[in-house]
């Protein structure tokens, strides 16, 4: 299995390189899909293996023994996230192809998108701090290009905010990596835990904080989130859907690694406070907005807060809940952005002032919105409910009553803003602006609709298969907490 671990990174990159040579649009589309589906197949194979054996799959790049060279490590958490990421990116690609504007607009859309996918996979798989930084750069650079794909005024303005803040994030990250190397002499995940534990308290805390800030910017936690709601809403909807669903989660994933592997259990109160304030501030932002994309963008922040809260609680139960939350949230958020994309495509606007009466016009679209929206608000029996309840239980058993209280209020406010979108966009008289094409909304955009439907279906599958999935999350969380196992897996793998 270990030979397959690297493929979800390599296949998209090869595809990207190929597409610079082959510039035919149809060929590009075919290559993209082939690359994503084959990556998905290999990633699934790794996942199944990790699931069945409970082992950690390690790929050693260059075939070097020990842990001095670069390794790719696929434990429970990584392997499942790679699979989810590939499912989401593949469906969003379907959406983008259906939407046609992005890839017809720019010949670079497909190669850059593939690089983004590779960067995301690499970030999840990296077993080395510096390699993680490089993975971040790959995905960030790709995201800069995608965010400014059309290069219009709005995108340039918001893209600038995004680029500058993320460059600062890169600077902080590479600085943190350099200083960690200075203090420990290594950047390998397998060597770092022991050496970090031996550092003096102050240095350890300083380095820890730097990493938290770097990944906190990426994950968009309070008070480092401001770039997100200013930049995502202007991106092409196919790009913002992936960003919304995946990129911030890469940040959360890294925070999980930091809190479990590198600095286990340290500064957890700080993390918890950050998590609680993030969810509160995020949702307050969301209910203030009048634009669907902005409401949804603020919700990303709020939901990140839940995950960070769970991470701050710590312990096997809460971290399992966090992992489950992470998995559930990726397709939910992405599908909401896709629905929004369809709406915008049809009405030319994402403002609640301009759009209304969609439920009458397209009942199916209404269903496609309602399911993920209610999941986000935590309504049973959808996946969001399970995730939220798992976190609430974790918080209660850790006696974090204030955090739980905030989580509950935030949940209600989430419902408020989802209802706001529903009432504003889906109910009411059919707005004149949405009358410009009289046929069915979805019939005209079959592949956009089916991409959205696939993701909504995926969220339903997560809910139905919650039993085994949660079991897997629990095992992944046990794996995360068992640092020795990680170290020996990397050191001894052949």
């Amino acid at each position, binding site marked *: 299995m270990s030979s397959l671990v690297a493929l979800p990174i390599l296949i998209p990159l090869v595809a990207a390189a190929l597409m610079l040579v082959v510039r035919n649009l149809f060929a590009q589309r075919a290559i993209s899909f082939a690359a994503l589906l084959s990556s998905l197949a290999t990633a699934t194979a790794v996942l199944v293996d990790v699931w069945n054996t409970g082992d950690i799959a390690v790929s050693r790049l260059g075939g070097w023994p020990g842990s001095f060279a670069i390794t790719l490590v696929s434990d429970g958490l990584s392997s499942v996230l790679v699979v989810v990421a590939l499912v989401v990116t593949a469906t969003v690609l379907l959406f983008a192809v259906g939407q046609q504007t992005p890839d017809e607009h720019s010949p670079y859309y497909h190669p850059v998108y593939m690089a983004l996918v590779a960067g995301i996979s690499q970030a999840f798989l990296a077993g080395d701090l510096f390699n993680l930084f490089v993975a971040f750069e790959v995905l960030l650079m790709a995201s800069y290009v995608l965010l400014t794909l059309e290069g219009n005024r709005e995108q*340039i303005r918001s893209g600038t905010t995004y680029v*500058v803040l993320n460059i600062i994030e890169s600077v902080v990250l590479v*600085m943190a*990596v350099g200083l960690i190397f*200075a203090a420990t002499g290594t950047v390998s995940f397998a060597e770092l835990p022991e050496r970090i534990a031996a550092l003096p308290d102050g240095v350890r805390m300083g380095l820890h904080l730097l990493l938290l800030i770097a990944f906190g910017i990426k994950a968009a936690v309070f008070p480092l989130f401001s770039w997100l709601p*200013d930049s995502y809403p202007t991106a092409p909807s196919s790009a913002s859907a992936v960003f919304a669903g995946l990129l911030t989660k890469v940040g959360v994933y890294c925070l999980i690694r930091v809190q479990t592997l590198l600095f286990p259990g340290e500064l957890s109160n700080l993390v918890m406070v950050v998590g609680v304030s993030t969810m509160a501030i995020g949702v307050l932002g969301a209910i203030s907005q009048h634009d669907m994309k902005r409401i949804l963008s603020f919700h990303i922040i709020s939901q990140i807060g839940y995950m960070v809260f769970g991470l701050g609680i710590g312990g096997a139960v809460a971290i399992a809940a966090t992992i489950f939350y992470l998995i559930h949230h990726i397709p939910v958020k992405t599908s909401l952005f896709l629905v929004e994309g369809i709406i915008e495509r049809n009405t030319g606007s994402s403002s609640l002032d301009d759009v209304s009466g969609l439920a009458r016009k397209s009942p199916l679209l209404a269903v496609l919105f309602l399911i993920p929206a209610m999941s986000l608000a935590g309504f049973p029996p959808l996946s969001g409910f399970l995730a939220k309840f798992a976190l609430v239980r974790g918080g209660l058993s850790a006696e974090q009553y204030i955090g739980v209280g905030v989580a509950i209020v935030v949940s209600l406010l989430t419902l408020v803003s989802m209802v706001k979108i529903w009432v504003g966009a889906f109910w009411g008289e059919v707005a004149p602006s949405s009358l410009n094409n009289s046929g069915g909304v979805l019939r005209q955009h079959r592949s956009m609709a089916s991409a959205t439907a696939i993701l909504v279906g995926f969220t339903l599958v997560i809910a139905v298969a919650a039993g085994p999935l949660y079991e897997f999350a629990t095992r992944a969380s046990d794996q995360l907490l068992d640092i020795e196992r990680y170290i020996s897996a990397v050191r001894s793998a052949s």
Partner: protein
Amino acid sequence: MSIWAFALIAVLFAVGSYLLMERSLTRVALGVGVIGNGVNVLIIASGSDAGEAPIIGREGVLADPLPQALVLTAIVIGFALLTFLMTLAWRNWTITGNDEVEDDVEDRMITRRAEQTEKLGDVPHPEDVQT
């Protein structure tokens, strides 16, 4: 770490940070360049002692090659970022005629709206309900 390296890092970070808080994108890009150099010096100065070039066969104490390799990667990535950022500044100029970062329109709107309380309006009595 020598006192000079220390001072250099301090100045590069201070100047870089100062420039990053500018509104002119070109100045921000200069800030990125300066702070990027600061990070590179930081990694080399704190990651290894000065020594001979790490080429096997050379005499004397060899410098640690790993920080050098890391910085090499960082330099190139920094160049990539700067190039893109400057193109962004240029594109901004072609649109607006300058290289300033504008404030977010929607955020300003929320700020304005926050000043006047937005009411749901008078809710009619449910008597005029139509079934």
